[in-house]
């Protein structure tokens, strides 16, 4: 039985933020490389660097009668959300915030994406951004409940909402093995809160960029960085929840956490270009009639196994 991680002082927060940032940058580099390969351009990995430089040099904009405060809160909020999620992700023996209800904490945070994405769409006082914002809410109605029930499954199996104890409960057999449905639904949820790939109609080309249509300069940079950070934070949180935490041969526990998070993140990034978008109106029925019953059955199965064993 692995030891339950101990909380370290808040002074380590910049380190955790740095690790998250590194993961997010790696995701952006990988995504950039995939984009260049698809475009047949020279295989450079510097795309995110160039894009960041471009956005730092670019002037900010504000639109006529914009709701500026709400708009900026929405833009920067995603990044803040991602940082708050990783506080409860244990890195081997250490965790920043050993919360007794860590799972609920993450759940509460992921719902904030609704507010932030919608506010970014609403604040700009532009028809395209607003339609984009509401599209995200429509997606949210379909993905959020399955995501919540997916988070319950590991908690039931571990009889704890403490993330460290959930990770420790899967020594020997990772939860992903016997709750694959919950894992897949969780990954869908992560992709959705990052407004990524199949869940990107809120940023759709058909709406001239949707929620991001009016963002430029550092405002756009923060929003886009927030998306990558959320994807990275989601991948990192999957490690203690489904992928056995720091368990693994040879390498120390903290290294395994990073390796697993990186691999999952790479898969999520790769998925983006391969899959068409899921229109909110079509996905609504899938979310309620396929994902929700499936993940509830998964929960039932887990509960039965827990009381039986």
């Amino acid at each position: 039985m692995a030891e339950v991680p101990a909380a370290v002082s808040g002074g380590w927060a910049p380190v955790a933020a740095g690790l998250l940032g590194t993961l997010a940058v790696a995701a952006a580099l990988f995504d950039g490389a995939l984009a260049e390969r698809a475009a047949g351009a020279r295989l450079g990995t510097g795309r995110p660097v160039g894009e960041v430089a471009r956005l730092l040099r670019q002037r900010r904009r504000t639109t006529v009668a914009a709701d500026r405060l709400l708009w900026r809160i929405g833009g920067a909020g995603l990044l803040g959300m991602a940082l708050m999620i990783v506080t409860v992700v244990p890195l081997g023996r250490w965790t920043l915030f050993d919360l007794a209800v860590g799972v609920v904490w993450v759940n509460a945070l992921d719902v904030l994406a609704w507010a932030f994405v919608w506010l970014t769409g609403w604040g700009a006082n532009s028809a395209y951004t607003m339609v984009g914002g509401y599209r995200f809410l429509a997606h949210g109605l379909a993905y959020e409940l399955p995501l919540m029930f997916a988070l319950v499954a590991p908690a039931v199996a571990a009889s704890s909402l403490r993330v460290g104890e959930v990770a420790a409960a899967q020594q020997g057999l990772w939860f992903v093995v016997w709750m694959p449905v919950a894992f897949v639904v969780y990954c869908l949820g992560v992709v959705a809160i990052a407004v990524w790939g199949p869940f990107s109609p809120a940023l759709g080309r058909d709406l001239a960029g949707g929620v991001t249509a009016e963002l430029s300069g550092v405002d756009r940079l923060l929003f886009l960085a927030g998306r990558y950070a959320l994807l990275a934070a989601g991948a990192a949180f999957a490690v203690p929840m489904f992928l056995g935490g720091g368990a693994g041969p040879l390498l120390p526990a903290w290294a395994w956490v990073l390796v697993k998070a990186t691999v999952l993140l790479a898969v999520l990034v790769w998925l983006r270009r391969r899959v068409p978008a899921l229109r909110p109106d079509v996905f609504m029925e899938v979310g309620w009639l396929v994902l929700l019953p499936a993940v509830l059955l998964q929960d039932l199965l887990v509960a039965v196994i827990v009381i039986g064993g």
Partner: protein
Amino acid sequence: MGVSGALARLALRHAHLLVIEVPGNWLTRVAVERLAGARGWRLAVSPADADILAVCGSPGPELSLVVASLWEQLPGPRARIDVAAPELVAAALDQAEAVLRDTPRQRRDSAARDGRGPDDASDDDIALAHGSEDRDGLEMDVLHVRLGPVLPDWPAGLVLRAHLHGDLVAKAHAGVVDAGHGPAGGAHVVGGGPSGEVGPADAAELAAQRCDNAARLLALAGWRDAAQRARVVRDRLLAGERSAATTELARLRRRVRRSRLLRWSLRRVGPLPPDELARLGLAPELTGDVWDRLNGMLSRAALTVGGPAGVAVGPVGVEAGAPAGVPVGVPATPPAAVASVVSGWDLATARLIVASLDIAALGVVTDG
């Protein structure tokens, strides 16, 4: 100066362009897309996202106003290029790069815009939205939004005046920008000379345009990889690499046909029965839903390029309704038909339906 110079150099590796196509200049637009892509540049989806405004062709008076207003919406650093022909694209892109690189100039440009609000809309000029009953009998606000002429993956010149209930297109009227001015100077018509004969080069161009339209539809459906492949096929066709294009087109068609997710998302969207097509003045090849039309587009491309030279399967449309000035064999889509087929759908679906019509040219008759 060192830092800002280095920053400018890094930024220029990935400049973003907003491309505006004047109807009849699609080859120029394609050349801009291709050469910009080869430089590692990207296409912008909105002015906020753009560094370069690239106008392909010479715009008429109405489109000139649109371009001027978009130019004011670019955040800066900004550069505008006007490209008259495909062979001038490379030089124009070089010129844009030089303008963007010139930080002092950009600072001056930006400072000159300070304190000056947008000329077309100050806060007081814009009305508040007014209510109207929606289809559930609730009173909600209606937004009057014009879609086009400048929108990603949108047919050149088309303007759709939509009454939006939320994201539902309750009513729409369509027109063509600068309709009263005839084809702009240097306008190029796909598919042949005045004789109406179709040679191999024209066949390739016709096929390339089908691929371009398919790429737009795939991009709107959110499938980036497939859209990119369709664009590659298009560029190969235009470059005269016929055999490579044929192979890749066949592969793309297989891939699209096999994608269950795409099929599931496009099935039953925008169904058009033959009698309605006839009534609207649209070609019979457009029968079915968006999924059928996407596959139809790709198979027409394959037929056109794969068939014996001279046996070209043209873009779809109607011969009878084509306005004077457009040669036979290049049928035009009546804008009123576009407006009619999108009414009652939500914006995302409406965009898919417009893209699925495989528009080669628009009739200049408007429905007001």
